[in-house]
């Protein structure tokens, strides 16, 4: 129960941060990617702001044996730089540019602008399903 509460609180703080920072606005995200237009640097501040607490969290993580509310750390250990990583990131970036949305803002926007957000989320889940079926 405590674990569910932590996940819900973390998700809520995450979604609140997206909305507060302007990252739930597709036009603002697209504005960051629009180097030849009216460039909007806001996303760089969001990324920088998010990395600061996480950098400290990784320093703490190295000094403790297990997380506070779970039995052990379950962290990705993959180190290979392969074609899947490169092609996947390339396709994701293209979709991000086309829509101005990545998964977090798409889901957060379900509460703010439900109709277009739901269109994006359904298409995203369809894309994930296509990957599952073909791999």
């Amino acid at each position, binding site marked *: 129960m405590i*674990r569910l509460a*932590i996940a*819900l609180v973390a*998700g*809520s*703080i*995450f*979604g*609140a*941060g*997206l*909305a507060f920072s*302007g990252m739930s606005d597709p036009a*603002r995200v*697209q504005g960051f990617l*629009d180097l030849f*237009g009216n*460039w909007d*640097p806001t996303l760089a*501040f*969001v990324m920088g*702001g998010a990395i*600061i*607490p*996480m950098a400290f*969290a990784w320093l703490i*993580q190295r000094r403790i044996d*297990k*997380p506070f509310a779970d039995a052990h*750390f379950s*962290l990705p250990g993959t*180190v290979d*730089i392969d074609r899947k*990583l*490169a092609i*996947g*990131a*390339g*396709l*994701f970036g293209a*979709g*991000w*540019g*086309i*829509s*101005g949305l*990545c*998964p977090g803002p*798409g*889901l*957060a926007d379900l*509460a*703010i602008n439900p109709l*277009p957000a739901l269109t994006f989320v*359904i*298409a*995203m889940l369809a*894309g*994930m399903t296509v990957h*599952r079926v073909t791999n």
Partner: protein
Amino acid sequence: MLAAFPHAMPVEGLIGGLMIGIAAALMLLGLGRIAGVSGLAARATGIADSGAPRSIAIAFVIGLPLGAFLVSLATGGVVTRFPPSVIPMILGGLLVGFGTRLGSGCTSGHGVCGMSRLSRRSLIATAIFMASGFITVALMRFGGLL
């Protein structure tokens, strides 16, 4: 501040970014997991078989719109300017869904959690999806789609 970019929101961006980082730190230090939204969304919907326990993934994913809703209530509304057509939503969504699964992460997993861990995989993935996003939007601009 940032007189050259009148539309920028550096203060809100930094504060919102800190909130995102604190949320990711809570997932890491509390539950021992990466706050990667694409992976958690795939897990919550049952599209992915492995990863976080499904209940944890569902709770996190429900939190995203909940938190955004609370900010919208507290601030009197959050601006979201979507493209007028559904085509970019559908095409963009398909590419984001397929690409994040193939590339094992998105802006949160690779960009925030992986880069702050100095993971080589995440640094490269982030560089590629950023470059791809810049190129895609440049093509849209010069193709008259913006």
